[in-house]
């Protein structure tokens, strides 16, 4: 048996240990992990609480968007009704789509991840608890304020995909569109924060022995999910940024009259938008895979195939975005490519569906609510998938596109693929968080009402679409034969709503939140989240030897609770968790975690304040929020990256692990890489946009005159990068002074800032007015992107200097130092690429 990190797997044989452990250790764990009470609840960062709040908030948005849907359906029940006037209707359907996609679906999956993953992986908590809290509060505050725009009639009204030029200032002069752009842009940041947390959590905090091949499928799905978010969300962040710049500063990115192109938005949006669908579906599929195995009381058939399917879906989903644009007149060749890719995505889906069926066949599924939801979801999803294959056929899509057929298709896929599984998960995992179980009898009613309602609503809607009813119409004229299908759909929508209402009643009657005395494993699951837990998760962290450890080792739960596995106590007297290696999950070090803090909450409130006040054009207040948000975040970071007196600790059975590491072993390093991936993707998307628009309207472009400035700029960046590397070298060298590595980084920052300034001013001197042509606008935007990184560098340099002054930059290794140097290197690289791209492209007229 080989090892990834040099850890000897034989050490696992020491567990379970034989000697009895004292109860005082548990009490100490409870004391350390105790959650603050009263108003200090706002400072809670523990995943049990944050996860539940997160789920509850996402569910609240599901209900709110569902109410919007009901009103929409009422308006469409019969022709020419007056429930919703035109403008209100347009706001309602925009908000319905936006809230369901951005405020329900993605956050719900992240929320379930935050709630379940630590337990599933037997970690004490996620590796960046304060980041979870920040992501949650940002989402909560930002999402609620965003939703409230509908009560004052200022909600966005351009459809959830906000196509310009309809959403440009010419055609949407109000601040409605700004609400979307800033509100959603901000919530995407929260989603990315959550994704980084989840990605690092899955790769670095699994229980020892839980190799990738033994990982629960939900973790696999969330891994792919988080990776996809890091790659897909930057596209829409860039798109919202560009459109907001166009609206605020009149830079013509999407204005065809000045060399921009409205299609650019569609490409950027759908490069995000289609993976988004799988971002929603994959975690739900992971949940189903886990539930199917437990409900059928057997191992899942085809575990490896499903993992392959998850990865394959993740990969293919980035090649299908343009199938939302078949009707835009794309060239036949690219249409063919995207059609083929879109169809191939159904193969991984087929694998998952059939492996669930095979599992159900092997096992003995019992007739209960989660099974119903899983099977009902499966049937519904398959139907949605089939209409999906239909619209992947380009000529058929030319007819079905933008009609109610598509509305039906997407609801089949999303309700079958995500909503039903999530409801199944509510029932299946409610035992983890509630003192009482949800009512099985009511649960069946909930299912049948929802299932019937869903099909009554959306099955006739296919026909409505074929009969020619476009989507997003606030009314229709009588005499088109659309009356009866629409009326049927409305009736179905209310049946569906009745099911959800019943679920709420069930929740109110039976759900009683608890972290200790939960009802537990109702459906006989075999994975680690069903170990007895407290706020500190499991008492000791088990060694995992199979995919369903609880089934394979019936004594595991008892041993874990008795502390016979790793870390049955707090080794340092603080919150801590075990960090393991990414592939084989071998113990690497003990992470000492930060505890409750009000700063993530304040940081989130001020960040939300900045964005929302910007939207309502309260510029002074908004600008005032910015330093407050920055200070809050820096203050929260200040507590992190501390070393403890114990350099090495015994994590049980004499296994000694360090308490502080840096470099690729450290979880902080992984998170930094994730952030840089996001930044890099934003930059790549910007480069794509730049080249794309040039390709569409080359006649608007001129060749920059003084190209040679690219070289001094690049040289400056190179000098900055070299100094950074030298600083890293100094850090590790014996005998260098306390300040010398920091000084090297500060000088590097100065070089980089100076290069950027040179780049900026020499470019302005060329006289490309960003309001006149797309070239000028794009150049300015790319410089602004680099400027954003520069602003981060300035903050980081100051932060590093402050930490050095306080003696917190420890030698010979320090994570803060690592993070700052990685950012410097990246910024230098991006700056060089920007300078060269702007000046050497277009190369010739």
């Amino acid at each position, binding site marked *: 048996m080989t090892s990834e990190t040099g850890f000897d797997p034989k050490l696992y044989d020491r567990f379970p240990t034989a000697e009895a452990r004292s109860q005082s250790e548990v009490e100490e764990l409870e004391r350390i992990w105790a959650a603050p009470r009263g108003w200090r609840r706002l400072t809670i960062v523990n995943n049990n609480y944050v996860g539940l709040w997160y789920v509850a908030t996402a569910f609240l948005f599901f209900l709110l968007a569902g109410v919007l849907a009901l009103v929409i359906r009422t308006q469409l029940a019969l022709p020419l009704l007056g429930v919703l006037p035109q403008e209100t209707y347009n706001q309602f359907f925009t908000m319905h789509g936006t809230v369901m996609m951005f405020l329900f679906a993605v956050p719900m999956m992240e929320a379930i991840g935050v709630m379940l993953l630590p337990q599933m992986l037997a970690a004490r908590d996620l590796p960046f608890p304060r980041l979870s809290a920040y992501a949650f509060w940002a989402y909560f505050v930002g999402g609620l304020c965003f939703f409230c725009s509908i009560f004052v009639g200022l909600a966005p009204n351009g459809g959830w995909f906000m196509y310009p*030029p309809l959403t440009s200032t010419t*055609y949407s002069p109000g601040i409605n569109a700004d609400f979307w752009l800033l509100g959603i842009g901000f919530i995407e940041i929260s989603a990315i924060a959550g994704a980084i947390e989840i990605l690092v959590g899955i790769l670095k905090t699994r229980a020892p022995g839980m190799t990738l091949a033994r990982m629960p499928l939900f973790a696999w799905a969330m891994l792919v999910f988080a990776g996809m978010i890091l790659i897909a969300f930057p596209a829409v962040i860039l798109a919202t940024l560009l459109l907001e710049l166009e609206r605020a500063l009149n830079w013509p990115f999407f204005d065809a009259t000045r060399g921009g192109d409205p299609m650019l938005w569609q490409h950027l949006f759908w490069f995000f938008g289609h993976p988004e669908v799988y971002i929603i579906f994959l975690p739900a599929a992971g949940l189903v895979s886990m539930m199917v195995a437990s409900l059928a009381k057997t191992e899942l*058939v085809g575990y490896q195939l499903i993992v392959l399917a998850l990865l394959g879906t993740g990969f293919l989903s980035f090649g299908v975005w343009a199938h939302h644009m078949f*009707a835009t007149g794309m060239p036949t060749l690219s249409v063919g490519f995207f059609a083929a890719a879109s*169809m191939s995505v159904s193969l991984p889906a*087929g694998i998952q569906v059939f492996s669930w069926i095979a599992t159900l066949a092997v096992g003995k599924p019992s007739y209960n609510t989660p099974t119903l939801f899983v099977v009902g979801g499966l049937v519904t999803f398959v139907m949605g998938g*089939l209409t999906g294959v239909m619209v992947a*056929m380009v000529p*058929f899509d030319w007819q079905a596109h933008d009609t109610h057929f598509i509305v039906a298709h997407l609801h089949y896929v999303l309700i079958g693929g995500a909503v039903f599984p999530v409801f199944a998960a509510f029932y299946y995992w409610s035992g983890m968080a509630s003192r009482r179980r949800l009512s099985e009898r009511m649960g069946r009613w909930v299912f049948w009402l929802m299932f019937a309602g869903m099909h009554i609503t959306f099955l006739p809607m296919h026909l409505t679409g074929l009969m020619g009813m476009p989507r997003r*119409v606030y009314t229709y004229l009588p005499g088109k034969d659309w009356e009866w299908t629409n009326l049927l759909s409305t009736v179905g929508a209310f049946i569906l709503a009745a099911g959800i209402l019943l679920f709420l009643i069930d929740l109110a009657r039976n759900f009683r939140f608890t972290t200790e005395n939960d009802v537990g494993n109702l459906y006989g699951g075999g994975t680690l989240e069903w170990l007895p837990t407290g706020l500190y998760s499991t008492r000791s962290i088990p060694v995992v030897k199979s995919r369903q450890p609880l089934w394979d080792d019936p004594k595991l739960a008892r041993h874990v609770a008795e502390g016979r596995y790793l870390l049955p106590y707090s080794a340092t007297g603080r919150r801590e968790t075990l960090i393991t290696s990414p592939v084989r999950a071998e113990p690497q070090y003990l992470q000492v975690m930060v505890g409750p803090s009000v700063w993530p909450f304040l940081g989130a409130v001020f960040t939300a304040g900045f964005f929302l006040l910007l939207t309502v054009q309260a510029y002074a207040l908004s600008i005032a929020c910015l330093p407050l948000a920055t200070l809050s975040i820096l203050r929260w970071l200040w507590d992190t990256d501390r070393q403890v007196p114990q350099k090495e600790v015994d994590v049980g059975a004499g296994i000694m692990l360090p308490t502080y590491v840096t470099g690729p072993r450290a979880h902080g390093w992984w998170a930094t890489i994730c952030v840089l991936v996001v930044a890099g993707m934003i930059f790549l998307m910007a480069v794509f946009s730049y080249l794309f628009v040039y390709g569409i309207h080359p006649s608007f472009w001129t060749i920059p005159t003084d190209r040679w400035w690219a070289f001094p700029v690049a040289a400056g960046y190179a000098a900055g990068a070299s100094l950074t590397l030298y600083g890293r070298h100094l850090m590790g060298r014996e005998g260098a002074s306390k300040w010398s590595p920091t000084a090297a980084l500060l000088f590097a920052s100065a070089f980089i800032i100076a290069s950027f300034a040179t780049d900026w001013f020499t470019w302005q001197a060329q006289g490309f007015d960003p309001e006149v042509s797309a070239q000028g606008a794009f150049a300015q935007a790319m410089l602004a992107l680099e400027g954003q990184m520069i602003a981060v560098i300035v903050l980081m340099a100051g932060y590093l200097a402050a930490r050095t002054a306080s003696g917190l930059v420890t030698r010979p290794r320090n994570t803060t130092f690592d993070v700052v140097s990685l950012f410097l290197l990246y910024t230098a690289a991006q700056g060089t690429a920007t300078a060269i791209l702007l000046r050497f492209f277009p190369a010739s007229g």
Partner: protein
Amino acid sequence: MFEGWPPPILDPAGPYAGSIATLSWILFAMAAVVMIVVLGALYLALFGRRTIQSKLGGKTVIWLGGVAFPAVVLTILLVYGLSLTRHLSSPVNGNELRVRITGEMWWWRVAYLDQRGREVIQDANELHIPTGRPIVLELESADVIHSFWVPRLSGKLDMIPGRRNLMRIQADAPGIFGGQCAEFCGGAHALMGFTVIAHEPARFARLIEARRKREREAPADGGTGAQLFETAGCAACHRIAGTGANGLAGPDLTYVATRRTLGAGILPNNRGTMIGWIGNSQAIKLNNKMPPYTVLSAEQLTELAVYLESQK
């Protein structure tokens, strides 16, 4: 069968929509077969006999049902679909009748082009075509993205600012075909209809000839209605060929009396709707760009309506 059957997508009136209708039926059949297979497998997995269940519960089923079966079905469909796509979007010959249709918020500008691509006849919201031959539509947009869609004649194609998309339609027999904007284009998107009327080629030729003639000659004196049309401000936005009215912001009214509908496919064209539309179109099609003319008296409205009823 029931109200609205067959739906227009499955009831094609020309070869382009026809091949898509055939494809649709094939796709429905495919979906039905796959659905039966999946539901059958699911039924057997849940309620089948133990022996069948044990056969179902293996990786072979996943490979067969999840990979091989869809792969074969999808490959066949893909080949068929792509060849159809190529066929439907094959390049135009250049000698077809060309019509430029420009999407506006929330109506359609129609211009018949001559061989050299010049706009010879202006119209709005209604397209006359001859039967039995393909017509090339040049789709453009004047403001935001619209999508041109007449389901019984062809699939839809977007009208994108800064671009020109080509689309072919053909009707096999004379008839009237309704259409509607399919891409959300703001406020009154729901009320942006379109009508295509297919004529026998000979009739169509006469119609075009008559209209060409009409474009060249000034009409007979329209009397007080014509004067009112110019003084009341109508002429600032609407054009009537050969008169002083040459506004281009709104639909061309040279042939308004021949149109089947008013307000872009939403109202029947008659005296009352004409007067009502002029008087306050905002009450009928909220947010459309025509201001309400509540200042006009009953007599003036009648004169205007009578004048417009003579524009053919």
